[in-house]
């Protein structure tokens, strides 16, 4: 996924917040438990915000370099895209 791409969720993909603060990505016939940075990134997915902006926001929030956040998030977004969970 290019840094300028604006990801959106595929059909049948939903973020779910639990009372205890945990966040899951609900997908067809499954659920992925997200760590805090992944949850923060996916909360910003709305089809209009570019990936580069999502990375910058997560980097600032978790006090890591944009390069480091970019690496981790690109891999996550890539994987989700390949499964059709992000477009």
């Amino acid at each position, binding site marked *: 996924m290019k840094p300028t791409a604006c990801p959106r969720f*595929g*059909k*049948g*993909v*939903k973020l*779910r917040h*639990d009372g205890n603060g945990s966040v*899951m990505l*609900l997908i*067809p*016939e499954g*659920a992925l438990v997200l760590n805090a940075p992944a949850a923060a990134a996916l909360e910003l997915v709305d089809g209009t915000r570019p990936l580069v902006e999502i990375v910058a926001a997560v980097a600032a929030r978790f006090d890591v370099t944009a390069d480091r956040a970019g690496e981790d998030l690109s891999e996550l977004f890539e994987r989700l*895209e*390949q*499964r*059709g969970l992000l477009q």
Partner: protein
Amino acid sequence: MNEQLRPLSLLCELTYRCNLQCPYCYNPLDLRAYRDELTTGQWRSVLQAAADLGVVQAHFSGGEPTLRSDLVPLVEAAAACGLYTNLITQGTFLDDELLDRLVDGGLNHVQISIQAPQAALADRIAGAIVHDKKADALRRVLTREVALTLNCVLHRLNHDSIEEVIDYAQRLGIRRLELANVQFYGWAYRNRVALMPTLEQVRHGEDVVAAARERLHGSMEIVYVLPDYFGDFPKPCMNGWGRQFITVTPNGYALPCPAAAGITTLAFENVRDRALGDIWRDSASFVRYRGTDWMPEPCRSCERRELDWGGCRCQAYLITGDPGVTDPACSLSPDHASIASLREETSGAEPVYRRA
């Protein structure tokens, strides 16, 4: 209660009625015993109770769930509880009107099954002329804002068509395909000699799936459910008894596994008599094989005990008569030889079609 022991998934078997007669169905043989179905209000209470327990996904299945006239309000009720909703259907009643009402009601995902990629074979397996209707339903779902999985249960009668199933899915533009080797419970167990794939079919299937996954990487996800009787280790059935899944049968029994009603040595409890949360937490049937304390050897000291959880209790019962032993599908089970003889006990006889 341990925080990990939170059910994540509720399977609502709304009805065992079905207009198809597939001999590979996992439903129980005594279908008539399930006719006293829960009411709409009772199902609503089950959905709310499940959501309160922490369940995140509700699966509506059967039988054929679209035969319940209250399917739409039940999907709406599940969505109102915050549950992700999944409809598992054979698709023959999924017309534009019903589909629109379901999607408007909050349906997130539909799984439609075909019996084979060729109409003649598919209709022969289904015991009804329905294949073309299913293709129409698949096309309809693809145009809606709802996710779709195409499912095909594989067995000896259609295993040689596995490549054609993948082509069929690709032609339609399916994003997610589930190729599920038949699991031998209910009608499928009764018909196992007719349905058991050959070793050649199983190996060929694995090669075809591996090649297709590579070829279609990024455009189609292929979920391949391994055959039960051909591996070295058992499936981690339900990810452990009473750990993540609850099934409620059409007449209200809460089960740790959809096939568990076949275990006649356990007494299951009914949501008409007791709250779902209580059944989940401390009914004798849910507690009996939960965790690892119940395990005999070789499971007890096995390093895989929290990977496959002893395999499947229903399978252990069907094959050995004791649900508390290691799943015979495991190569370490003292009963493993029974699996080999079941695997080899095949015949070209016609299967018995599912009927009430």
